[in-house]
């Protein structure tokens, strides 16, 4: 039986794309340090925005990878994940709560562990272009979070 170890996703992906015949390796974003904003108030009094890499399961979401905002409640029955890189042999994404934690966070709001869910959750596209993420998508997500009065954000990539 194989032992538990951290799967080296960057190396696996490089090897996989080389095997597919792509000549240029993808270079993941790299920084030595990270920004840090302390919480302004306790989580139990904060409004939280959820951000996902899954797209809405709608005609638009299936056709166009873009920033989308969807009401946080009730949580959607399904999300469009077919184009994302997740382990399609080991698992599935038919239960949205397994990758989009809206229902469980709503329960934590009711238990006074979280202040509130922001009115919308947001879909952010995973693009090949890091420049597009930094210059276009991330600022748009920030604007939408601010518009909703979100004070903290939980980002959940598949």
């Amino acid at each position: 039986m194989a032992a538990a170890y951290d799967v080296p996703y960057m190396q696996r992906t490089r090897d996989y794309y080389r095997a597919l015949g792509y000549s240029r390796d993808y270079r993941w974003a790299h920084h030595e340090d990270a920004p840090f904003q302390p919480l302004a108030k306790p989580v139990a009094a904060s409004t939280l925005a959820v951000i996902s890499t899954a797209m809405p399961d709608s005609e638009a979401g299936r056709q166009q990878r873009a920033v989308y905002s969807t009401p946080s409640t009730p949580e959607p029955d399904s999300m469009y994940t077919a184009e994302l890189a997740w382990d399609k042999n080991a698992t599935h994404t038919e239960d949205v709560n397994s990758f989009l934690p809206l229902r469980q966070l709503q329960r934590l709001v009711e238990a006074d562990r979280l202040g509130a869910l922001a009115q919308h959750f947001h879909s952010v596209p995973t693009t090949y272009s890091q420049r597009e993420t930094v210059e276009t998508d991330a600022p748009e997500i920030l604007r939408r979070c601010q518009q909703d009065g979100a004070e903290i954000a939980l980002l959940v990539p598949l």
Partner: protein
Amino acid sequence: MSLTARHLEANGIPTLILGSAIDIVEHCSVPRYVHVDFPLGNPCGKPYDEAMQLDIAEQALQAFADATKPGTTVRLPHRWSEDESWRDAYARVDESNAAMLKKLGEQRRKEQEEAKARGVSLLNQIT
């Protein structure tokens, strides 16, 4: 996703990433990260396991409250299965599939070129 977290954080919104690809997230450096050691796709807990999903969400909120410095990683203890074979299997390349992958790559590049000619961009990702 890590870049989006950094952008929000730098603009005044504290962030936490809940994910399963620890090497990619830590390579980017993010403010707060909670690691669920599962196959990619279910960072919030196993499908239909509501108790586990609630526990993971609760622990993510706790990590939010506890983090005092950037680059904080918390590893949650949940196990996917007794069977660890998914770790070796993900995107595996070996002699058994090398020829198939080469052919698949050729087919994919052809599809991408055709899509490009129609003005559509196709994702270049493992599917």
